[in-house]
């Protein structure tokens, strides 16, 4: 079995350096492979480029969209937290402005205020009033914190310096993570400031943060400047765990960055929460998690696969078709070359045969005459004792000469296949010439030859010698066929524009259909009797010559009725007249 895949790299395209030495089959296979590869490259390169560019562009678009969405989402979350805290701060400030310390120290009033605030702000845990010395004066809430002193607490000291303050998350006396919103106010009746403090636990903050979460957000949490978690994180754990930020956010707005999470890139949005010590961190899933991206990727892969299979199939079909067509034309060309070579060889053999026949015919003629003379003399010498024996020997010699003569005549018939020399010829003229050569023999056998030549027939461009040979062969066959007293008719007419038809008909015994179909085959002869000896080349040569001259020859025969040979020749047209080799 022949290989479709070549052995070496250069064989893929060039079939090796010496493709001329390959057989037609190998060259065809190689051509098919080259065409297939070339067509696949032609189709696949633009397809790959299109798919690649689409992939990159769509990924870029999704990336940009994800960045914008993440930034917008983080900004939303930050504003929501800020609004929540501002509302709490405003409430604390309103209370501190609306009530005096004397009113606030009353437990009933303070408790009522706490209940009112808690009803409106659900995350509120407790409410404290702290005196100028840092001691808690009033407390409303679930913990037992009455009388606690906060003078050493960092949040208390910072609250004294500001109108309102939001602390970091810390444990404090209750030992539970929480943060406070504190508002300090100068006591108009005494020295120092009193402070109103509201506590909010981090679970409230967590709930709040999870409320602003959406499906695109992977994690959202708050940290302080030191990276300590102020709320729970999905990935970094609970409050007070440490988170390392590679870069710090800008003072305002949201800062975007990409980060690695679980071996895949994630988008991180960070920004300060105004009025607090907190930094909001929001992690988004990468674009590659998005359904649209996954859908786009699978659709693109499917389109690529379909195009690959389709273009492969089409390329294979086209390559096969082209390779087969080229192979067919190469085979035809090779056949023509072989025929040309064969014709050339035949012509050489023909010339050689002609020379040999001539050279042999002359000595044969001498032998024939010498033998004949000896016979003549012996026939007159009745007293010669070995007369009969000698005559028998001489008959044998004559028979041998006769056999040799048949051979040389066959050689000469074969040699008559000469090169074509085109000239402008009137067909009736050539037929008359041939008849002039044959009519004595025909007349000797009482054969009637009738001619019907239409007037004003166009000329043909042909070879005179070969035309003579064609007509000689066919008319000679007709003479042999009809025998004593037969009839032959020859007509020439223009049957269609540009075509001349010569019909040579005889009233001989006709040809059986099984013989008629082989009549133009070389060495096929029906003349095998004692009187007739054919070479089987006459009609074959005539057929070859007619075809070579651009014509056609057919035979139509009916046993018992006769035979008609029809020969068609292309007539000279204006164009052929201008370009032809008219030698007249």
């Amino acid at each position, binding site marked *: 079995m022949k290989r479709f895949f070549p052995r070496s790299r250069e064989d893929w395209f060039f079939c090796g350096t010496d493709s001329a030495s390959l057989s037609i089959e190998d060259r065809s296979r190689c051509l098919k492979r080259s065409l297939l590869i070339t067509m696949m490259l032609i189709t696949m390169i633009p397809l790959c480029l299109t798919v690649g560019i689409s992939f990159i562009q769509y990924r870029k678009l999704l990336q940009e969209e994800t960045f914008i969405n993440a930034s917008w989402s983080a900004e939303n979350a930050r504003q929501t937290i800020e609004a929540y805290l501002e509302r709490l701060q405003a409430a604390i400030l309103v209370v501190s402005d609306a009530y005096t310390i004397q009113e606030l120290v009353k437990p009933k009033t303070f408790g009522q205020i706490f209940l009112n605030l808690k009803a409106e702000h659900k995350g509120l845990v407790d409410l404290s009033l702290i005196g100028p010395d840092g001691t808690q004066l009033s407390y409303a809430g679930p913990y037992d914190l009455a009388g606690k002193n906060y003078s050493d607490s960092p949040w208390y000291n910072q609250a004294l310096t500001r109108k309102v303050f939001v602390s970091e998350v810390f444990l404090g006396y209750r030992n539970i993570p929480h943060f406070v919103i504190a508002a300090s106010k100068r006591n108009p009746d005494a020295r120092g400031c009193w402070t109103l403090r509201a506590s909010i636990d981090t679970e409230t903050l967590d709930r709040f943060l999870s409320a602003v979460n959406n499906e695109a957000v992977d994690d959202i949490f708050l940290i302080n400047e030191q990276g300590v978690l102020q709320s729970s994180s999905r990935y970094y754990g609970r409050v007070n765990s440490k988170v390392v930020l590679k870069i710090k956010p800008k003072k305002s707005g949201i800062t975007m960055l990409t980060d690695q999470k679980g071996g895949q890139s994630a988008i991180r949005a960070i920004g300060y929460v105004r009025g607090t010590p907190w930094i909001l961190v929001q992690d988004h899933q990468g674009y590659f998690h998005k359904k649209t991206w996954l859908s786009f990727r699978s659709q693109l892969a499917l389109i690529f696969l379909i195009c690959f299979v389709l273009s492969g199939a089409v390329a294979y079909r086209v390559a096969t078709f082209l390779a087969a067509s080229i192979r067919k034309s190469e085979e035809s060309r090779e056949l023509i070359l072989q025929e040309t070579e064969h014709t050339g060889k035949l012509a050489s053999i023909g010339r050689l045969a*002609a020379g040999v*026949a*001539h*050279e*042999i*015919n*002359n000595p*044969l*003629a*001498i*032998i*024939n*005459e*010498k033998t*004949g*003379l000896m016979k*003549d*003399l012996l026939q*007159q010498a009745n007293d010669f004792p070995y007369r009969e024996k000698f005559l028998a020997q001489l008959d044998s010699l004559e028979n041998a*000469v006769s056999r040799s*003569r048949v051979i*040389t*005549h066959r050689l*000469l018939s074969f040699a*008559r296949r000469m090169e074509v020399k085109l000239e402008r010829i009137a067909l009736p003229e050539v037929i008359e*010439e*041939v008849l*002039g*050569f044959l009519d*004595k023999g025909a007349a000797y056998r009482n054969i009637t030859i009738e001619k019907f030549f239409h007037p004003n027939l166009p000329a043909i461009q042909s070879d*005179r*010698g070969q035309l*003579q*040979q064609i007509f*000689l062969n066919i008319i000679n066959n007709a003479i042999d066929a009809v025998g004593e007293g037969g009839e032959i008719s020859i007509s020439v007419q223009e049957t269609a524009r540009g075509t001349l038809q010569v019909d040579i008909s005889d009233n001989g015994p006709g040809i059986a259909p099984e013989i008629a179909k082989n009549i133009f085959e070389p060495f096929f002869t029906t003349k095998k009797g004692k009187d007739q000896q054919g070479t089987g080349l006459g009609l074959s040569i005539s057929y070859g010559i007619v075809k070579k001259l651009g014509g056609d020859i057919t035979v139509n025969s009916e046993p018992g009725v006769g035979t008609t040979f029809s020969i068609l020749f292309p007539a000279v047209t204006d164009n052929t007249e201008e370009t032809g080799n008219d030698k007249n």
Partner: protein
Amino acid sequence: MTKIKVLIIDDEMEFATTLAERLDLRDYESKAVESADQAFVLFQTGWTPEVIILDLKMPGVDGLATLAMIKQHNPAIEVIMLTGHGSTASGIEGMRRGLFDYLMKPVDINELVEKINEAANKHGP
């Protein structure tokens, strides 16, 4: 009865003389020469054949040229071409130039005699 005079022109003298001898045995008056020049020398002696048997391929003046010269000299002389190398074209060309018939070597003596008689009788016995 006057014998028919036959001249054989062939460069193969052995053939020509043997054929002439055979024709003589058949009551013809025949002579053999090997070229056109010798034939015309013979004509100058006053011996004129009724029929000439002429070879086609000869050194010097070939058969077709000799035919033309003979026909020019005496159109009444009938010429039969007898050649070892026959082609349709040369046969037809010979017929065009006034050849009586065209035969291939080696020829059967009876067929040749028949042709000679036909040629000799062309202008009447």
